[in-house]
């Protein structure tokens, strides 16, 4: 699997070459960016196709004594998300980003490399390093506009992510001390002999560190701040990839290293589901109060991540399928919403909800896309969000979390209240004459592509589910992962 390592190297190389092209060869900038994104898409598809059966790429050919990259269905799903989001966002931002263009692309590519690294690596410390890469570069993207709010958001983000990283690092160091290795599979084997108490303390540190990045209540406060005044195409990647990559890392650590039996015994599953329920209800209540569109979408992201966490913490096959499917769906839906918001911002610099009044009559197709995506995120049929929510609720009911299932439906209702508010404002006629700048094809095409995916995955969910269906056996029984990583 040569392609696996290329998935990490190619964006890095692109970022470095953009740095050179900023100084010397300025003309090749746009072709470089676009062609690299296209090649990257090809690479990702190659890797995703080979993600089952799982295989290992050993960096430096050191096998067990070095760092390994593991391509499995779970990471295949994340690579799929990158594949779906990355090229549209890059095409979108080539026209959208006007100032600090080079930096924007450098950071975006580095961030993608970091996320790909987090997703692929099978080494605990390497995970931390790539986590740091992705969070530092995304922090830079938050501050890209250099406005007051952007800087403040960046600072808060930096503080929180660093704090989380330190706890993850502490847990990693202690893990190394206990097991003498950093390879996830070996740690998992060694962990069988570690006493319960130490394991649960380590788990608390891991959970705290990653949840700080995921943003469950009450660790969510930095998240809306980072969304408010940052370049909106970045928000697409942020909600679609950065937050999700933390979810990915957490789930990988919990399910592979600690194992489902331990999670059940230590009560994390119950705590996680309860936490998720609290989170989405509070997030919905808060989202209703927002007047800034990006902020509203950020709170909605928190709520959606809570749904995902419920799905993943239910701990059954159905729950994992539902949660993973919702990860994919949320990336698509939120991506669409943010891109439409970005076009509004581009055309008349409107980010507050009052500002978008009457825009539906200026951008009929884009507004329709917005409506589709928001109904999908609310969870109404026949869009994709409905299918994944259905799966999550079904799984929650099956494994006895009746309250969680019920509150997910309540949450659906609550989320409708604020999305409908936005939609209605969109369709209210505005007395003022609106002068808009035409977005053009390169902005609207990626948006419509993502929006159409909402419907496609809703009507034909078997398309992504073919990949996702392989995940649960893989996570619930960490034996296969260990076998592949150690022996395969």
């Amino acid at each position, binding site marked *: 699997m040569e392609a696996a390592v290329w998935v990490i190297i190619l964006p890095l190389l692109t970022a470095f070459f953009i740095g050179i092209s900023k100084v010397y060869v300025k003309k090749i900038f746009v072709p470089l960016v676009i062609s690299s994104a296209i090649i990257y898409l090809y690479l990702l598809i190659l890797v995703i196709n080979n993600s089952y059966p799982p295989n290992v790429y050993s960096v430096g050919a050191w096998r067990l004594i070095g760092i390994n990259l593991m391509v499995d269905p779970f990471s295949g799903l994340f690579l799929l998300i990158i594949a779906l989001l990355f090229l549209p966002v890059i095409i979108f931002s080539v026209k959208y980003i006007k100032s600090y263009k080079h930096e924007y692309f450098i950071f975006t590519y580095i961030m993608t490399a970091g996320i790909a690294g987090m997703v692929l690596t099978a080494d605990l410390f390497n995970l931390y390093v790539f986590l740091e890469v992705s969070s530092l570069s995304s922090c830079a993207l938050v501050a890209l506009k250099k406005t007051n709010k952007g800087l403040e958001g960046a600072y808060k983000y930096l503080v929180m992510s660093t704090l989380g990283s330190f706890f993850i690092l502490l847990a990693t160091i202690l893990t190394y001390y206990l097991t003498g290795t950093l390879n996830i599979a070996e740690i998992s084997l060694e962990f069988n002999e570690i006493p319960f108490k130490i394991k*649960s303390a380590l788990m608390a540190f891991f959970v705290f560190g990653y949840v700080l990045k995921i943003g469950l209540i*009450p660790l969510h*406060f930095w998240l809306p701040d980072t969304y408010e005044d940052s370049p909106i195409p970045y928000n697409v990647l942020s909600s679609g990839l950065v937050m999700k990559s933390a979810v990915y890392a957490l789930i990988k650590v919990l399910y592979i290293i600690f194992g489902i039996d331990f999670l059940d015994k230590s009560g994390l599953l119950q705590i996680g589901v309860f936490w998720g329920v609290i989170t989405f209800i509070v997030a919905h*209540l808060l989202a209703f109060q927002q007047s800034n569109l990006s902020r509203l979408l950020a709170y909605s992201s928190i709520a959606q991540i809570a749904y995902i966490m419920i799905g993943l913490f239910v701990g059954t096959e159905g729950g994992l399928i539902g949660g993973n499917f919702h990860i994919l769906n949320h990336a698509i839906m939120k991506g669409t919403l943010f891109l439409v918001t970005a076009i509004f911002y581009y055309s008349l610099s409107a980010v507050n909800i009052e500002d978008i009044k009457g825009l539906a009559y200026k951008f009929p197709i884009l507004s329709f896309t917005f409506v589709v995506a928001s109904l999908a995120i609310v969870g109404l049929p026949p869009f994709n969000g409905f299918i994944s929510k259905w799966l999550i609720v079904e799984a929650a009911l099956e494994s006895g979390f009746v309250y969680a299932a019920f509150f997910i439906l309540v949450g659906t209702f609550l989320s409708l209240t604020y999305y409908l508010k936005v939609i209605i404002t969109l369709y*209210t006629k505005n007395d003022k004459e609106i002068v808009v700048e035409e977005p053009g094809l390169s902005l609207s095409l990626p948006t419509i592509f993502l929006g159409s995916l909402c419907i496609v995955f809703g009507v034909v969910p078997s398309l992504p589910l073919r990949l996702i269906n392989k995940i649960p056996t893989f996570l619930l029984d960490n034996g296969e992962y260990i076998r592949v990583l150690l022996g395969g």
Partner: protein
Amino acid sequence: MITPGFLYFIGAILLLFPVYEKLKYMLSFLVTVAAIIITLHLIPGYSVQLDFLTFTLVPFKVDNINKLTGLIFAVGGLAAVIYSISMCSLSHLRLIFVFIGSALTAVFSGDLFTLYVAWELMTISSSFLIIMTSDVTKKTGYYYFLMHVAGGLSLLWGIFLQYSATGNFSLNNIEVGIPFFMIAIAIKLAFVGFHTWLPLAYSKAPFYVAVILSIYTTKVGVYVMSRLLSGINSLAYAGLISALFGIAMSLKQKRVLKLLCYSIIIQVGFMIIGISIGTTEGITGAIFHLVNHILYKTVLFMVVGVVIYTTGKDSFENLGIMGRKLPITSIATFVAFMGIAGVPFFNGYMSKSIIKEAIQDPILTLGLNVMSFGTCIIFLKFIYYAFFKNSDRKVDKKPPVSMQLGIGFLTVLMLLVGIHPFFLENLTNMHVDLHYFDKKHLLSGIQPFLWSIPIFILFKKYIVKNYERFLYFDIYLNMAKLFMTTGYHLSNYHDGKLNKYLLWATSTLIILLLLFMF
């Protein structure tokens, strides 16, 4: 075999392309007529199976009851589309097509999953119909959407409970989660307590939207109730109460559309009673009543629509123009009135007779009579203003041919059903062993009508008088306020102080450690 609902969806997709005026007419006519023809040729017992996710769905299943319902829906669709096509824009037409299509899908669905999807699609499309018409209707649309989604979610929860208990999506034997199904259907039916959306939506929305909504929204509820909740006897009393409430409310209304709205609640009461008896007769009667109700209530809405179209308002005084200047409308009004009053040889009579025949309980019989009587009184007010009160309103513009065509089509159907009630039975092989035109039924059918006329004349000044609007109390608005204030207080906690946030974070860490280690 293709489902008629699917046909409508195809029509909606075809309308997405830039279509010019004539093609639009042709396309909609083709789609609606084709839907009727297809529905006529459905064979009961046919079903389609589909594998979706992990379950096997039956998205299309035909039997007698839903064939009849589907047929009347298709007919209503034809009439409504013809009626409204000259006024509504392309985007509206699309939404109308989706709405009708999803209603038909819901009717023909053979499992709960498809039913839920179609149910929510109806909600979405109808809400956007309301939202997108004008700026006045935005709040109404918001309210309507939220109410219906709440109902839909309640249905969904019921489905989940049912599915986790039984492991299938069968429509037939609902065992678990009946209260949730009840709430869902109650919202759709505009039951007392859940009715608040109905007068708001139908009176605020433009009349052609109201026509289309009135055909499908509540009726799908009735149909689904007949499928899921038939035979729960106690519901009959609830239906009675609902109907009595409807009578009381509709007597107070100033606006014709609102009167019609509340009268829907009354008529739905009939159907609830029929269904909750649970016998074949009762359900058949309810479904027949649904057919008849669609026919006359649609005509009434259309008539009021014509009045609004020509005069611009829907107050009672404006009805007067009907008497002389709009002949087709007047005839239609009269026929519809006779139908709704249950006068023999008009269509409402047959289904009311069946329901009455099916009832064993004396209280319910009495209640049914009272309901018929009340309906008559309400619509006598309508008739009084339309034909007997002098009006000086002028007709600004003539209603277009398409509107009158729609009205005429339904009026003819009404007459047909009224004079030859076996027509419906033969159409769907649902035979009720009942002689419609024997003395007993004729007498009981005409009695409420006959009694109502002298009483109306006696108490005319009380009934015709326009009452002041009563204090409007809506519990849902109070709940919304609670929700808003909670959110406001919560958002006040997010005051941007990083130290405070970090304190929360550390406390969470300690709590996590405590939870995991002990």
